[in-house]
């Protein structure tokens, strides 16, 4: 009995395809509304999901599962992201604490470095205001750079007192618009530094997000930092987690270890903390989702219109096949069989539209992504949802015509010419 039901369902599906292919043009036109609606939804969701994912990984982990632990003024807590630029002098970080953080299971790498805006760097008449970094090898391991000219500073040089500097391409372009930078001496707050290398740290994602935005940067040995900044701190602490899920956790753990070394007096004024980038990323993602729902809602109108089109054609189909229905009823077909036959046809029609729409939507998203460089991500839940939704459209809008078919009186149906 169960097998019979299954067999008759399969038979219905087969008959539906037969009837859809018997009227190809009509079927495609009928499906068009569903195809457009689903394609729009899938394209929108793919683009926005892709955008959110890229944003999340960039924002939360700087693209590198890395988070900054910031020593900040307690009075400025809540001002958030920008407060670390206040030049607070943190007590020196103990070597054992660094080791301790490094040995934690979630931690992959750790770097203590300096970072500040320069008040002006000169070469002859040229001038720029770069972001300056005083780093050791650990930093370059976390945030790798690519040398385009000259050489990279060695780990030993990075800890030494040589007045060497590496420029990024933007800084080089501003200071040496028409010439070779290597070996030249540039002026940092009156102190000469020799250019040993030119590097780039731009990724393709940076190019997408910031476009032609340029930011001049200098990398100096950590060992020479006190000479230009006048103090050894503030120290930026970057912690790299083993995976993206552990970023926040690893950062908070590092902050706790660092705070444990502070005296109660210190803690009253300032302490280490991490910014909850995860939360910010979630907020942005939530905002994107709201946006996607809004656009999806608009696209659903197309689905509604498509559904009405399906209903219309199904009603025509029922009228056209009145005699067939009459014959089947005379031969003993019960109401539910007729209902099921037409309902199956409507569902097959809209599901087929859904499948074509999904393929089209992915195609559109891919095309947009190729043209604009925007990231996109195929969302499995969205695909499953769309498929189910297109089936529901078939059920909802196929029901009325199917009921009409099943209620036809055999006498009248047979008489119909």
């Amino acid at each position, binding site marked *: 009995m169960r097998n019979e039901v299954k067999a008759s369902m399969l038979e219905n599906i087969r008959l539906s395809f037969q009837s859809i292919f018997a009227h190809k043009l009509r079927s495609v036109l009928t499906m068009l509304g569903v195809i457009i609606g689903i394609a729009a939804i899938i394209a929108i969701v793919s683009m926005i999901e892709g955008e959110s994912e890229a944003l999340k990984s960039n924002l939360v982990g700087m693209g590198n599962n890395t988070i900054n632990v910031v020593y900040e003024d307690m009075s400025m807590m809540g001002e958030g992201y920008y407060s670390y630029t206040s030049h607070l002098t943190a007590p020196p970080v103990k070597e054992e604490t660094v080791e301790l953080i490094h040995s934690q299971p979630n931690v992959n790498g750790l770097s203590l470095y300096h970072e500040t805006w320069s008040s002006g760097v000169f070469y002859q008449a040229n001038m720029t205001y770069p972001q300056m970094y005083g780093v050791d090898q650990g930093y370059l391991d976390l945030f790798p750079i690519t040398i385009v000219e000259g050489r990279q500073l060695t780990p030993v040089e990075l800890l030494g007192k040589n007045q060497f500097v590496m420029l990024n391409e933007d800084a080089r372009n501003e200071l040496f618009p028409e010439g070779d930078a290597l070996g030249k001496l540039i002026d940092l707050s009156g102190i000469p530094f020799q250019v040993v290398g030119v590097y780039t740290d731009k990724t393709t994602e940076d190019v997408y997000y910031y476009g032609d935005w340029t930011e001049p940067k200098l990398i100096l040995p950590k060992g020479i930092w006190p000479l230009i900044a006048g103090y050894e701190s503030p120290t930026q602490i970057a912690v790299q987690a083993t995976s993206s899920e552990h970023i926040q956790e690893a950062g908070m753990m590092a902050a706790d270890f660092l705070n444990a070394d502070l005296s109660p007096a210190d803690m009253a004024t300032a302490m280490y903390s991490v910014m909850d980038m995860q939360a910010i990323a979630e907020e942005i993602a939530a905002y994107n989702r709201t946006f996607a729902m809004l656009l999806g809602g608009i696209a659903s109108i197309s689905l509604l219109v498509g559904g009405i089109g399906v209903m219309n054609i199904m009603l025509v189909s029922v009228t056209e096949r009145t005699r067939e229905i009459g014959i089947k009823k005379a*031969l003993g077909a019960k109401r539910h069989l007729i209902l099921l036959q037409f309902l199956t046809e409507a569902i097959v029609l809209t599901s087929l539209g859904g499948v074509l729409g999904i393929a089209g939507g992915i195609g559109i998203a891919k095309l947009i992504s190729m043209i604009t460089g925007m990231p996109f991500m195929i969302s499995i839940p969205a695909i499953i949802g769309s498929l189910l939704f297109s089936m529901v459209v078939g059920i909802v809008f196929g029901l009325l015509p199917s009921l009409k078919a099943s209620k036809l009186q055999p006498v009248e149906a047979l008489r119909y010419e």
Partner: protein
Amino acid sequence: MIRLSNIDKSYKLGKEEIPILKNIELEIEAGEFLAIMGPSGSGKSTLMNILGCLDKPTSGSYKLDEMDMLSGRESTLATIRNKQIGFVFQTFHLLPRLTALQNVELPLIYNKIKKKERRMRATEALEKVGLADRVSFLPTRLSGGQKQRVAIARALVNEPKFILADEPTGALDTKSSEQILALFSELNKEGVTIIMITHDREVAEKADRIVYIRDGELLHEERGESLNA
């Protein structure tokens, strides 16, 4: 086997009741070959619809053996049509997108017969009407007479109590008509009960018994002896 008593059927047209059938009394024995004859508008189609459980009378009773044919719901009537009655129509009423075999299989599908047995019984029925070599043909590739024979095979396949044929030769040429009527006679000799509705006296005369209907009333009947005499 069949007993119609006191059957009335009328349609409402505005406020007026239009009587179609008036006080029909009819008994049909198993194994009979009966023709119901009358001009168009006489009510013979309505009578056939009632006999075929496609329509219900306004009043009266209809019994097949001891079974009450009028009390059932729609799904019960569908089952009765499927198992007890074989229909043969003037314009064949084959489904155009199904082959001869698939058309004959339809009543078996509704009777929930398993595929293997279905195929076997449908093939047998087509053999019986002489179309063993046409099983996989679509109706468009069959002649009128062949189409009607497929329809007869379809009517026979569920082994119904009787066959109800509505102007079975109405759309056929003389030669095909004769073949179809010969087939009916042959089936009748094998014991199949046949009720045939027609307006054509020549066709009706192939039956053992003719009942005449005019203006919704059964007038008189002729028995086989006088017919064949």
